[in-house]
Each structure stands twice: as structure tokens, then as C-alpha cells.
């Protein structure tokens, strides 16, 4: 035991002068950190159980609680940091692969923060979005290669490929029911409907109560095929084939049996309590031409009425892979960068595999244009979008739209404790425990998601107006509107932008 001991990274600090022994913290903590000692009539806290989710802090009525970084420390060492040492200790004790959640927390470069946005001065006018039209409507899907006319010479659009219409170029990315709670899904579905955009089921199927939001739903088909059947495919506005995700490229998924309760079981169409394992690859796709087969089997199953999205993780060869996808019959490519979140991923994979989405979107957009096939496919990017400026930069680099998930979860109460894999989320997000799930009110969740995306939309419109652009399509791939700051020539070349001052 003593050899395995790890001093907690964070310590619960209680101000005894402020604490009234109300025990709200006891009720709020699903991990049992807080206890009341009736003998001494005082509160206790066990920091070893604390995951620093901030639930007790947020609900303490007297501001008596805070969680601070522990100051217990090993001898300082820039090479053998305390986390490097702790990992070895934990693995030596357990023999297990480290399992983490949410996105890569390490200090890799964040290119969003090294890109600056332009504004108009004199040579053309900026536009005030509060008083003049400012358009963010976005279409996703293949553009028809031929223009059709009827006998009278009027343009005909009946044969145009199916597409998605978004009021704002932001969609909610796939998070499976099972990994997140029902109330998260309901909030996302209702917010997507109100915002005129889409949410994505993730790979855990679609709960029967949520079929009514189908026209704002993207249904996902992953290697485990959970909950995939004809009615599910018909329910969504688009179908996403999930090849990979940014947090764990090349790795399958594993929802432990204890998270598969009766509702998750019904939705995934697997028995209660059984593990839901997603194989690493789709076992009908071992080569790019096999992807075409899965794309078309879904198109055939839905009579060519829905766009097909193929989601991949941003990996080293992402541009060539995207080119292959663009030629597979898919209508939309979703690319997930290496900072994307997850309910659970092997720590080494999360922290070491994949590339930043900023570089991936630039490389993919370039490649598709070089091959003259950018019009065959739309590009949705995700994995590391934190605010509206990131969205705008992604679109100016060449994306049609972005998927967000981590910001959506934060809007729903997530405080980024990165402990989803425990299944005891105190905010009712990544848990299936009914008492915890009930903490997330879907009415409130919907309201907060709508607020977040609406606020971002207004910020995007302000920035567009500043550039003199009044429609989002004129921003797409408009890299002249961007400049790099503190980037080397290679990075600028990949991003296809000039340095500030040039």
C-alpha cells in the first residue's frame, strides 16, 4: 500500500469559520469526499477521493470550500515530473494500461492562438451586424457537378445531392448515449432544434424518446453497429460513419457493462450489463475502396435521401486519406483533431497520437483543392475548438463548419475534471446513475446550449462584419483574412497564411 500511495493532486480546503455544517457538500459529492462526524460535530474531507469536479464548491452556500493544487511535491525535476513519476508508480502497482478521459491536456502548440484575424480599414467598409444583414447559413454536402435545365431552359434542382442546412456553422459532435447521460442527449437534441443545427448521436444508438428530433439529428454508424437498424438510419437527417476520433485514433471503444443499464441497453440494442465493445476498425473496411462500399450501402438503405458523413481522426497522412474519402461517394468529411475529448481513452494514445486540427484542416483543404475535388465534399472539423474565434479561424482556413463537444459539455456543467471514466460525474453528464443524471435538467441544459451557440454566432458575425464579409461562404477558405504570429515558415506554409506584418 505505502509503495502505491499517491498523494492527491488536489486538496479540499474548508474554511471552518464559514462552514455551517449544512452538509450540502455531502449530498452533492457522489464520490464520498465529504462526511459529517456527528461525534465532533464537524465536517471532514477525504482529498484522496476528490476528482476536483468543483461540484461541492459551486453548491457550498457560504463559500467555505475550495479545491487547491496540492503543494506536496517530489523533488523538482523538469524531466521526471511528478506526473511522470506517479504514472510509473500506478502502473507498477496495478499492471494496467493508464485510462484517461477528455482531451489531451499536454502543452502542445495551440495554433489557434498564433493566428490573427483581419479587419477592414478605409479600402473597404466594415459592416455593422446589428443593423445590416449578416449571414451564417451554411450548407453541408456535395455540390452537383452538372447544371440541369428543363425544356424551357429553366434551372432544375431535383437531382441535386442531399444536403444539410445549418443556421449557424456549428454542430454538436457525436457523444454516445452510454458515455453521456440521457439528459445530455435530450439537451443537445432540443438545443439543435432551436438553433437550427444538428447534434450527433455518437455510436450508442438513438433513444426512442428522441426520434422526434430526427430532422436535427445525425445518426452515427460505428464499428460496433450499436443501435443501428433501418428505423435508426431513417430517423436522422444525415448518417455519419465513424472511422476514428481525435482522442484515440486507431483505437476502438469500450463501454463497461456497469454503464449499460436498461435504457442504454434498449438504445444500443444489447443486453443489460454487457460490455459494449467497438472494434478498432470497421471489419468491412480494410482499404479505401471498402469505405465506398459502406458509404453506398447506407445510401442504398436510405434511398439516397441523406448525406453521408465520414469521420476520421486527424493523423499524419490526413490529407491523402481525406482525398480518398472525397472520392468514396461520401458527402461530408469530419476531421477530429488530437485535442478532442473522450469518455475514456488509453492515456498514452490520448496524449501522443494524432495531429492538431489547425494543421489538418489547412492540409486537407489544400489537398482537396489541388485535386479539384473540394466541391465534391464538405469539411467539418473538431477537436480543440474553444470559442468563436477558433470557429472563425477554422472556417477561414477552409472548413465549412465545426463540430463542438467539450464546450457543449462545459455549458452543461462540466468542469473539466477529466474523470469521466469513473462513471460518477457529479454534474450528471458522464454517468448513468439515476440520482446523478437527475442533476442535469434538460430544460436548463437546452437553454445554456442555445445561449452558448447564439453568443458565439453573434461574435462570429461581429468579426465577419469587421472584415467586411456579410455571408459566411465568403469567409470559407479566405486565408488572406488570417496572419500568423510567432510561427516559423514551415508552419505558415502548412497553414497557407502569411505572417503578421506581411
Amino acid at each position, binding site marked *: 500500500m505505502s509503495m502505491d500511495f499517491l498523494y492527491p493532486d488536489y486538496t479540499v480546503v474548508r474554511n471552518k469559520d464559514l462552514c455551517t455544517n449544512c452538509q450540502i457538500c455531502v449530498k452533492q459529492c457522489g464520490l464520498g469526499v465529504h462526511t459529517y462526524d456527528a461525534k465532533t460535530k464537524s465536517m471532514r474531507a477525504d482529498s484522496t477521493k476528490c476528482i476536483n469536479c468543483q461540484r461541492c464548491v459551486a453548491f457550498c452556500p457560504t463559500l467555505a470550500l475550495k479545491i487547491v493544487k496540492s503543494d506536496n511535491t517530489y523533488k523538482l525535476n523538469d524531466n521526471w515530473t511528478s506526473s511522470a513519476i506517479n504514472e510509473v508508480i500506478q502502473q507498477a502497482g496495478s499492471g494496467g494500461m493508464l485510462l484517461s478521459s477528455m482531451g489531451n491536456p499536454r502543452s502542445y502548440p495551440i495554433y489557434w492562438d498564433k493566428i490573427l484575424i483581419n479587419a477592414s480599414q478605409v479600402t473597404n467598409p466594415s459592416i455593422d451586424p446589428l443593423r445590416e444583414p449578416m449571414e451564417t447559413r451554411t450548407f453541408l454536402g456535395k455540390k452537383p457537378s452538372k447544371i440541369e435545365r428543363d425544356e424551357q431552359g429553366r434551372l432544375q434542382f431535383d437531382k441535386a445531392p442531399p444536403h444539410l442546412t445549418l443556421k449557424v456553422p456549428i454542430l454538436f459532435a457525436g457523444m454516445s448515449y452510454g458515455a453521456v447521460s440521457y439528459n445530455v442527449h435530450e439537451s443537445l437534441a432540443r438545443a439543435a432544434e432551436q438553433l437550427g443545427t444538428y447534434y450527433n448521436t455518437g455510436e450508442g444508438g438513438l433513444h426512442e424518446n428522441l426520434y422526434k428530433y430526427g430532422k436535427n439529428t445525425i445518426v452515427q454508424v460505428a464499428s460496433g*453497429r450499436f443501435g443501428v437498424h433501418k428505423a435508426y438510419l431513417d430517423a436522422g437527417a444525415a448518417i455519419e460513419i465513424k472511422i476514428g476520433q481525435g482522442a484515440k485514433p486507431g483505437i476502438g471503444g469500450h463501454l463497461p457493462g456497469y454503464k449499460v443499464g436498461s435504457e442504454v441497453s434498449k438504445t444500443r440494442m444489447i443486453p443489460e450489463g454487457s460490455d459494449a465493445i467497438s472494434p478498432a476498425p470497421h471489419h468491412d473496411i480494410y482499404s479505401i475502396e471498402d469505405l465506398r462500399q459502406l458509404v453506398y450501402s447506407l445510401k442504398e*438503405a436510405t434511398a439516397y435521401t441523406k448525406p453521408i458523413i465520414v469521420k476520421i481522426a486527424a493523423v499524419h497522412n490526413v490529407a491523402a486519406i481525406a482525398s480518398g474519402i472525397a472520392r468514396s461517394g461520401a458527402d461530408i468529411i469530419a476531421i477530429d483533431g488530437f485535442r478532442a475529448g473522450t469518455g475514456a481513452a488509453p492515456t498514452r494514445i490520448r496524449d501522443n497520437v494524432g495531429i492538431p486540427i489547425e494543421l489538418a484542416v489547412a492540409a486537407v483543404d489544400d489537398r482537396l483543392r489541388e485535386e479539384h475535388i473540394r466541391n465534391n465534399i464538405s469539411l467539418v472539423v473538431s477537436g480543440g475548438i474553444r470559442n468563436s474565434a477558433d470557429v472563425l479561424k477554422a472556417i477561414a482556413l477552409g472548413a465549412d463548419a465545426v463540430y463542438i463537444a467539450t464546450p457543449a459539455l462545459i455549458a452543461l456543467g462540466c468542469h473539466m475534471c477529466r474523470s469521466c471514466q469513473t462513471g460518477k460525474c457529479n454534474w450528471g453528464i458522464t454517468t448513468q446513475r439515476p440520482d446523478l443524471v437527475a442533476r442535469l435538467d434538460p430544460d436548463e441544459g437546452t437553454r445554456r446550449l442555445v445561449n452558448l451557440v447564439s453568443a458565439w454566432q453573434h461574435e462570429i458575425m461581429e468579426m465577419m462584419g469587421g472584415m467586411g464579409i456579410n455571408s459566411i461562404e465568403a469567409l470559407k477558405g479566405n486565408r488572406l483574412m488570417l496572419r500568423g504570429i510567432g510561427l516559423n515558415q514551415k508552419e505558415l506554409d502548412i497553414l497557407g497564411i502569411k505572417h503578421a506584418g506581411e
Partner: protein
Amino acid sequence: MRINATNNLNFRVLNEQIRNTEDKNVIIDNCLGQRFIGSGMGQRKLTINGTPGNALGAYLNGADIEVNGNAQDATGDTMNNGSIVIHGNCGDATGYGMRGGEIYIKGNVGFRAGIHMKAYQENSPVMVVGGSAGSFLGEYQAGGTIIVLGLNEEAEAPVGAQCCTGMHGGCIFLRCDSLPEDLPAQVVSRKATKYDLDHIDGYLESFCEHFSVEKEQILEKPFYVLEPNTNNPYHSIYTTYLS
């Protein structure tokens, strides 16, 4: 309705014809590689003469498909209900992720047949293979029943390597005198009891009916049953790391 698929009739044209007809019985002649036939199809009877292409009966939802010939890869992918009867051999990843319905193959099946097959409530998929199966049979199997008869097979066990690797539900019946030696640790095997055979009797009956085989001939050899010994095969390999 009868469709002549000769001269490489385009799969999209062919499937559109099938989708758009009111006829409950559709016969396709001279089929040669057209993919996605019967994709997502409900109550129908499709008879295919020739060699249908990949992903035959993907997401099948109640239709009955009979193939007079061999079928290719990914037959019955994510099939939900209905039946597929192949009077010949069938390719790789047959019955991938199937959740319900029945697949009968007179001859052999390729690699990774029944991969990630799963059962749910009243749905329990069945795949019966008359000949032998390739490697990775029932990989990740989470439910349903796979039966491999090995009729006219010389090999001791009618399956390739790595049978039922990652299996965590359902069962596999192998008709043979002895089991393969490389079965994974999380799988237990036993000789089929009368109770076990009762469970598959109806499927064997159907197989015999489809392909005019005598059931007595099938029962001449013993069956083994393979099942997972835990629902959580990978549970112990991870340790939660809060970083």
C-alpha cells in the same frame, strides 16, 4: 417481378427497380457483382440467380433472400431481421454486427464471419454454415448463435485460426471430433448436451430443408459448444488515471 441484370446492370439502377416495385416477389437473373441488393429491405422475397456483389442484405429488415450461387463479402452486414440463404459459398465478414434474422450457407464462409454478432431481447441472430469457416470466426461475438457443420470436411475442426477471439456473448456450435487448440482464454468449451442440441434443432431442420440434407447425417458427429466465461473480457487491462 423479374429483372435481368445482364450486361453489368448498374447496382443503383437495379436496386431502384427493386425498391420501386410493389411486387412481393422479385427474381434477379444473371446477377453479377451488383452490390447492396436488398439493403434495409422489409417484407419481400428476393431470389437471386448468379453472384450478387458485396453487402448483400445489409441492414436487412425482414426480407427473405435466396441466392442460387455464391455470395461475396459483407453479406448481411448489420442485419436486423429476415433471412439469407446461400446455395453456395459466402465471403468475408458475413453477418457483421447482425442483430437478428438467419443466414444459411450451404458451403463455406470466409474470414471473420459473425464478427460482432449480437443479440437483443427477442432478436437472436443465427448463422449456419454447412462447410467450414475461415479464421476469426465470431470475433467480438456478443450474442446470437453460429453453427458450423463441416459437412464433407476433412479437417478435424471446420474453422480457421483465432476462433472466437474477443467473444463476450452468444455461442458457437462446432460439429467436429476435436476442438481447435488455439481457443482464447476467455472462452469455455464443452461437448453439446441434448439440451444444447435442442436449442439448435430448429435451425438444423431449416438448414436441411433449404439444402436437402439429411438431419441424421448431421447428427452423426458430435457438437462442441463455445461460450464466453465472462461478460467483461478486457476489464482488468486498464487502470483509471485521473490526469
